[in-house]
């Protein structure tokens, strides 16, 4: 089946970064031509580091101690200059915001060709070729920032493939995609595999990749500790998967621990948030309606997911609820009291996706005490929150010195300091491994148990299944559906969300 010619091989490779503790220990790994291998495992296990060895970022960009032998298509990687790697490997990174070097789609595609001095006629021909293949023809002159998530992904692929490298290296390509775009990505990848490309991916969301993958390689603490075929992975028991911190390898629309029992208990609770006939416009140059006539209510202790395709207005709705945006019509009430936007500010906490933008103070403890220096019970509350979230030991650290997960928990804690009626979270589990995702689930359950109503903006169906009672579906400028998680309508809605957009 597989051509056994070697594309890349690592022989007893160890690496340690200069600045960080993350490292690789004695890696032996062979990637065959035409193969699709998915690296998975907890964050910080060395997946990205391994990939950086094959696109030249190590040792040319990230410095450190490198031992062992790396071969790339029969050449020793040690002999390759940083720019020469682009002939053999193309790379797609997780965050399209920071991987696009140009503002215009065609410039972005052509960038690697221009750098190595490809002839302009050849560049234009290659642009046409790739654009036709990926149906990007109408977008060639567009601004990359204005594209949808799926379109950005295609541009990133076109840019990586421009100089026709055989090996494609993809670092969590689906982390920021909605369900439909993630399904589109898997079709894109299977096309590339058929064309003879060798694919190496790091990914936590496995269900879309299993039909394409030849092997799933599990990394932990800088070592490769397991390797499965898709069949072997599917055969793992739930307990084994949970122990390894893996996400579900199949697209499930119901689970044993679905929220039905919980939500019945919530029925009689007090209403925390009531949204009634709310309309909003997208702030900016041209005022365009974001959504109209959105109505729903959240009870004390309830956890609701808010989902829908990218650009459906989920973030706009969240901003409106928090009081950052004013409603055009309709009203919002908190605990039975109708409040205008200015008075909602501070009563609904909003934890955004990017933690770095939300941490202001110079210590973990100081972060929680911010603007509350004069409240006498604030230090005690801060201590309790930090203890609950496992951050108390780190209270004197600078927020910037924390790991990604710790930063996220600190942003949670900062939001909870104001004792909000409602907590809104934006994509709290995108790019998280199974173990971290489950700890977010536990956190949400604890918050809800303490009486807060929680609204989670998410594409993550596993999070919906394990943590949420209801799913609110936003699309086409209105609230399309409001359903129980685990119901038949929920399963249908999820499958529909996964359908590709035309």
């Amino acid at each position, binding site marked *: 089946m597989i051509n056994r010619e070697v594309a890349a091989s690592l022989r007893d490779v160890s690496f340690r970064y200069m600045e960080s503790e993350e490292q690789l220990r004695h890696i032996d790994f062979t990637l065959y031509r035409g193969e699709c291998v998915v690296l998975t495992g907890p964050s910080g296990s060395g997946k990205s580091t391994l990939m950086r060895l094959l*696109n030249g970022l190590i040792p040319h960009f990230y410095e450190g101690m490198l031992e062992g032998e790396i071969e790339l298509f029969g050449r020793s990687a040690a002999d390759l200059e940083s*720019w020469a790697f682009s002939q053999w490997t193309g790379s797609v990174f997780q965050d399209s*915001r920071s991987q696009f*070097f*140009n503002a*215009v789609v*065609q410039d972005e595609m052509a960038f690697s060709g221009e750098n190595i001095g490809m002839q302009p006629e050849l560049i234009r021909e290659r642009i046409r070729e790739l654009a036709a293949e990926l149906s990007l023809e109408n977008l060639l002159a567009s*601004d990359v920032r204005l594209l949808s998530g799926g379109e950005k992904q295609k541009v990133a692929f076109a840019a990586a493939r421009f100089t026709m490298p055989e090996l494609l290296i993809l670092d969590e390509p689906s982390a920021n995609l909605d369900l439909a775009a993630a399904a589109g990505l898997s079709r894109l990848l299977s096309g590339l595999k058929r064309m003879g490309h060798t694919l190496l991916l790091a990914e936590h969301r496995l269900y879309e990749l299993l039909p394409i993958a030849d092997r799933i390689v599990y990394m932990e603490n800088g070592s490769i500790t397991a390797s499965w075929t898709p069949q072997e992975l599917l055969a793992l028991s739930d307990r084994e998967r949970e122990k390894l911190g893996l996400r579900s390898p199949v697209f499930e629309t119901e689970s044993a621990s679905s929220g039905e029992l919980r939500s019945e208990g919530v029925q009689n609770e007090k209403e925390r948030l009531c949204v009634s006939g709310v309309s909003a416009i997208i702030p900016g140059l041209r005022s365009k309606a974001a959504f109209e006539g959105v109505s729903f209510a959240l009870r004390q202790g309830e956890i609701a997911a808010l989902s829908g395709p990218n650009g459906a207005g989920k973030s706009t709705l969240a901003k409106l609820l928090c009081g950052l945006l004013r409603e055009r019509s309709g009203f919002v009430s908190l605990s039975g009291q109708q409040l205008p936007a200015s008075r909602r500010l*501070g009563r609904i906490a909003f934890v955004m996706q990017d933690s770095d933008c939300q941490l202001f103070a110079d210590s973990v403890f100081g972060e929680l005490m911010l603007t509350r220096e004069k409240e006498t019970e604030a230090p005690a509350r801060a201590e309790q929150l930090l203890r609950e979230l496992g951050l108390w030991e780190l209270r004197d650290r600078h927020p910037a010195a924390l790991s990604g997960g710790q930063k996220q928990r600190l942003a949670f804690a900062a939001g909870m300091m104001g004792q909000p009626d409602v907590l809104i979270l934006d994509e709290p589990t995108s790019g998280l491994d199974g173990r971290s995702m489950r700890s977010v689930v536990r956190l949400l359950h604890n918050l809800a148990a303490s009486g807060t109503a929680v609204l989670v903006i998410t594409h993550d169906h596993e999070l919906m299944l394990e943590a949420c009672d209801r799913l609110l579906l936003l699309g086409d400028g209105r609230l399309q559906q409001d359903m129980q998680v685990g119901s038949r309508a929920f399963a249908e809605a999820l499958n529909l969300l996964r359908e590709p957009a035309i």
Partner: protein
Amino acid sequence: MEPEVRSGQSEFGQSSPAGIANREISQVRSRRVGLAFDPRAQLLIVLLAGAACALVPWTGALALTVVLALYLSLQGLWKAALTFLLGMMLLAVAYAVSVSAGVTVLDFVAFMLSLLLRTLPVAMAAYPLGFVPSGRLIASLQRLHLPKGLLIALAVALRFLPMLRLEYEAVQTSARLRGLSASKLKNWRNPLQMFEYRIVPLLMRSLKIADELAASASVRGIEAPGKRTSVYTIGLNLQDYAAPLVFIGAAAAWMMWGTGG
């Protein structure tokens, strides 16, 4: 000046030697139809505007604005041209009033206004450069034999600035939610801290983005030693010679006759 403008417009009707790709950019990307100038010519206009503003009296700066408004309109930026023109006129009126009032307190205001009157035309001349795709800018400036390192730095800076603005907005939103809003008067009791709360998160984000951006450029061979090629066809057309000449002509005419001797 009139004949030059007409010849510029007729030039647009012909197929631009800058190639198909280039025409797509000016029409689709920014949804504006206009004459495309080579970035080198645009840069020269900025330098000329700077020199002229330093040499001519403030009434001359006002007249330069009119010429620059035509230059912007030719490139399809007529909205911006009108805004700049209006801004200059308001500044000029304010300046004239503050000078003629003869009150010493207003001298400082008048001084500041005269400075503004001389910098705004330069900003106006530089404005179209913001619309040039960085690939085209690098390709054009490469012809001036500027060092490649400088060009790349310029391209990174151009790419980084709009990104920084988006990040700043995210920081701002989060600050408002946390009660650190800049519009709350009580938060300004400690302005230094207020500044820190904006700069520190922005710095953290910038470091991360800069790192990722550089890594992305590195894997795509930005360090390749040879000469860089470009998807854009770079060449100087009639308008690239005409525009600076018209500009110099207008400035010279103003200096000779416009000041009224």
